[in-house]
């Protein structure tokens, strides 16, 4: 099985699914799920393979596909989330309009992401990148209403990004006359730092937009919250990580770790500037997330913040930091997808995701609650979930690298994360169950299944972090980082080892102790709500709104400081551009005389410029 075949299957299968949908919706669903599972299996079989092959000639350039451990890691994440979200879609999307189109786009986006990670040259990277962009645009717009503005915002920013990419790509071509990533990488070491920096900045714009790095993040909150939930999971879980992949490719594969370290020094180095941006990306969005009342918007802002951790780890550029960033990418893919799916399940059953009107769903959807809990724990970085390990690696990098400010921001961000993760858990699942949700049922199986898989991944990687870390270590070594002493339980280093078996036993022991204490203590009396809940006064049977306006005191403190200034700026800019455009077209006045005058003016200008001033 070659890479070309994989892509042919992925793209061809997508169109086949669309055509089959015209015949029978059931067959279409089956084919879509089968297709993603087959892709997953193929990608899994690719493990450990390396190689590069050219697959077609485009305008005189060989387009090639290449596989190595780095691309395999991203590919397996793409394939896993692709299949899980397709399974999740089965019941979530049931009865919605235009499902053939939905599955087609879902599968195309999935296939194009595989194309991105497997492309061995900058052109095919760009081609798949653009296919992903417009596919995503169509899917974001799918929900109509406010989704339209979100889609437009996404695609405009995306085109800006690809513009920067094109410029970067062609300036590399102009210097090295090749588009092949490996070839450029082998020749780039002689380039001047200024040139490298300009190329890196161009690429950073592209990948920063996709990765939602502040100040290029503004498309993300709208897009993530307006997209259909299974696609939000893909969007947040893996699609924005294509930006991360791009950062890794441009920083460590193209430019290379050695040349990168020569780009400026101290605070004014490329590394450090990126790290600062990543820190801002953690800090501000975390607290904006806290203030949202739409569950998916909370998660969307949270995605921006978590991506900040990933970039922070990668930008620092030590082997520990790189491992932490890469591991956090995997973890974020798993728990954020899980959370989007869980919120999707709640929305599917209740029809809303407004945190102020939900509550007490735990009684009706205990399973979904458990899943949300695991996801939220992973998000916070609770021990024994994978988030703990990756955040530990990142903190450790920052502390070892003597970056107290960055380390503080990372820790402070985690504190904010705890607040909003708790807000989601509490406002949806705790408290009193509103009257209208009395009839809510547990999520159907096709929703439970992907959530279970993801939660297993979260716990598994939390207890046995060595599984992914070994792969990440291979990647790091191939990029020129020092090898890490990874074992199945964690990671050893001279300044203190991480060993999950110790943590695991410590927690187990403390749980047992707590359990024993509770067991020994006299059991508490079960008190009915009417008993003394409201001190004997009448309890309204409707909604008892103590989950609304959660964290109101915190809001009052942070509200003046946490404003998305960038978004306001972009919106003002867009408005200004629109006004300017409106004024431009007023040149066409409708007056015939002036039109003829334009013609004569052009002639006059042409002749005077040449003969009078001899400009050229």
């Amino acid at each position, binding site marked *: 099985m070659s890479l070309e075949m994989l892509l042919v299957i992925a793209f061809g299968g997508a169109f086949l699914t669309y055509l089959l949908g015209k015949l029978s919706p059931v067959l279409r669903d089956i084919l879509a799920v089968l297709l993603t599972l087959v892709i997953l299996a193929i990608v899994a079989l690719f493990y450990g393979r390396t190689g590069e092959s050219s697959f077609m000639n485009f305008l005189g350039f060989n387009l090639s596909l290449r596989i190595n451990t780095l691309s395999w890691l991203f590919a397996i994440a793409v394939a896993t989330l692709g299949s899980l979200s397709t399974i999740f879609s089965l019941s979530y999307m049931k009865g919605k309009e235009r499902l053939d189109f939905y599955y087609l786009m879902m599968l195309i986006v999935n296939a194009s992401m595989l194309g991105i990670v497997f492309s061995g040259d900058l052109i095919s990277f760009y081609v798949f990148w*653009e*296919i992903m962009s417009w596919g995503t645009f169509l899917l974001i717009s799918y929900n109509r209403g406010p989704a339209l503005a979100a889609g437009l915002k996404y695609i405009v920013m995306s*085109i800006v990004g690809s513009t920067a990419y094109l410029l970067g790509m062609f300036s590399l071509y*102009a210097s090295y006359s090749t588009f092949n990533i490996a070839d450029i990488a082998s020749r780039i070491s002689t380039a001047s730092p200024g040139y490298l920096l300009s190329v890196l900045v161009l690429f950073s714009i592209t990948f920063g937009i996709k990765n939602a790095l502040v100040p290029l993040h503004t498309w993300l909150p709208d897009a993530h919250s307006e997209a259909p939930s299974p696609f939000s999971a893909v969007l947040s879980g893996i699609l924005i990580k294509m930006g991360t992949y791009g950062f890794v490719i441009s920083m460590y594969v193209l430019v290379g770790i050695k040349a990168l370290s020569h780009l400026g020094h101290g605070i004014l180095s490329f590394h450090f500037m990126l790290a600062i941006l990543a820190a801002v990306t953690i800090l501000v969005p975390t607290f904006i997330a806290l203030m949202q009342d739409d569950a998916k918007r909370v998660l969307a802002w949270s995605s921006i913040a978590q991506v900040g951790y990933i970039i922070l780890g990668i930008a620092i550029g030590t082997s520990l930091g790189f491992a932490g960033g890469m591991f956090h990418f995997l973890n974020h893919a798993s728990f954020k997808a899980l959370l989007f799916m869980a919120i999707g399940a709640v929305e599917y059953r209740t029809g809303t995701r407004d945190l102020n009107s939900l509550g007490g769903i735990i009684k009706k959807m205990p399973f979904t609650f458990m899943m949300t809990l695991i996801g939220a724990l992973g998000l916070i970085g609770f021990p024994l979930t994978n988030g703990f390990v990756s955040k530990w690696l990142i903190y450790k990098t920052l502390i070892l690298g003597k970056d107290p400010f960055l380390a503080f921001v990372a820790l402070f961000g985690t504190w904010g994360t705890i607040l909003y993760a708790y807000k989601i858990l509490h406002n949806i699942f705790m408290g009193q169950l509103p009257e209208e949700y009395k009839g809510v049922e547990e999520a159907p199986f096709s929703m439970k299944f992907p959530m279970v898989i993801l939660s297993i991944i979260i716990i598994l990687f939390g207890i046995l972090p060595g599984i992914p870390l070994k792969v990440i270590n291979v990647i790091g070594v191939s990029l020129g980082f020092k090898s890490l002493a990874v074992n199945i339980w964690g990671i050893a280093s001279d300044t203190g080892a991480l060993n999950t078996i110790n943590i695991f036993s410590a927690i187990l022991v403390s749980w047992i102790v707590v359990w024993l204490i509770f067991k020994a203590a006299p059991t508490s009396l079960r008190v009915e709500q009417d008993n003394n809940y409201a001190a004997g006064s009448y309890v309204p049977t409707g909604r008892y709104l103590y989950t609304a306006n959660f964290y109101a005191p915190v809001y009052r403190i942070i509200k003046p400081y946490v404003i998305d200034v960038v978004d306001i700026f972009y919106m003002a800019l867009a408005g200004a551009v629109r006004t300017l455009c409106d004024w431009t*077209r007023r040149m066409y006045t409708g007056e015939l005389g002036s039109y003829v005058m334009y013609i004569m003016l052009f002639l006059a200008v042409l*002749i005077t410029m040449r*003969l009078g001033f001899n400009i050229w």
Partner: protein
Amino acid sequence: MVNPVLLIAVPLGLAFSLPIFGLISKRLEKYLPVIAMLFNLSLSVYLVPRVLTHPIIVYIGGWAPPFGIDLFVGPVGIFFSVIIALVGLLVSIYAMDYIKEGDTGKYHVLFLLLLTGAQGVVLTGDIFNLFVFYEILCISSYALVGYLRDRDGLESAIKYLVQGSIGTGLVLTGIAFIYGLYGTLNMADIARQINSIKPAANFITLALIITGLGVEAAIFPMNAWLPDAHSSAPSSISAILSGIAIEIGVYAIARVIFTIFGATDILSFVALVGIITLLVGEMSALKQNNIKRMLAYSSTGQIGLIVFAFAIATSYGIEAGLFQILNHSLSKALLFLAAGYMIYRTGSMEISSFEGMGKRMPLTSLGFTIGAFSLIGLPPFAGFASKFLIVKAALTKGGGLYTCLIALALVATVIEGAYFFRVVQVLYFRGSNENVTRQEAPVVALVPFFVLAVLIIAIGIYPGPVMHVLNSATSEFVHRIAYIQGVLR
């Protein structure tokens, strides 16, 4: 060996015999353009391999140049012939059903004349003959713009006519200068002598011709007629005007600058004008609510991009410009044709009235979307290859000016993306989808949509065969000595 003069003679002959066929049967009239274009397409495709090995030069009446008129069927000529015949064929198929109102016989006569003019311009080797064919193209397009005889059509027709006549008047003045300076009208012969005259006189001649042709090619600021004319003509004519007529103008300018004058010093100015045209066009299109006006402004923008690509003047640049001409012809024809039936169904040109079209006319909407994506330059459509080539040409040319200009061009692409994606959203996602019944365009209209869409995707994925032709076409522009020697053996 078939004589390439038939490429001009057959449509011209059929155009004037069409009223006679009309006497036999009114229904026959609408098939004649299809037959003529089918003939032209097969002949041009048949000639492609021969022309690529060496250009065919036909001496009309057996008079050798510089005394007689010659047809120079080189790679450039045959490339444009194929585009004209292809787009002409598809539009004439479309028009079989679309044109029902008015005196349809006259429509078909004028339509054939327009294509004859275009065909003649790209094949002729004589500059006055070029002017004559150019006038044939212009006059028939003035008449066709006013074909519907509604207020907008008539108004834009008279405005187009006045501006166009001023433009062709300037061209004729320039030709008079050329004749006065060199005593010849054969393009190769002029090119041979061009450096024998002092530059100032040369330059004024060049400026007159460029300005004159620039009116028809819709270069800023001479493009004021275009949004009016393209938006009020019948959609099939808009497709031809956008897909063929303005490209012919660009061809003529390129021929004059590269082959006749060999004027490389003016090119940086032309590049600048191209980018201004692009920016103004795209910016004017951004807030349009009238779909055809939006597409028309987008055409001026694309012309600016083509002009810019030509002005880069390396072989990469010319190749990119030719590729963009191909892409624009196909995509813009598809867009106008698709928009034509959507307007026909809704009775309105307002973009907002196209809500729910994705369900009402799914194939038409799909065609529109493919055309729009291709114009923005998204892979895997043809527009990507041309955008790729243009950026490559500009950045390999080097120099601060071209880097800045291409950056501006890409900014314009962002604006273009914004308004095209907005329309795509209206087609598929805006408004509610309920109570919409399917009212697809008739089959004769779907055939052109299908062919154009398939071509756009096929060329986007496998540009190789097209590039083969474009390489030879580029060298025809770059090696003007070879052109001169070929004609004046």
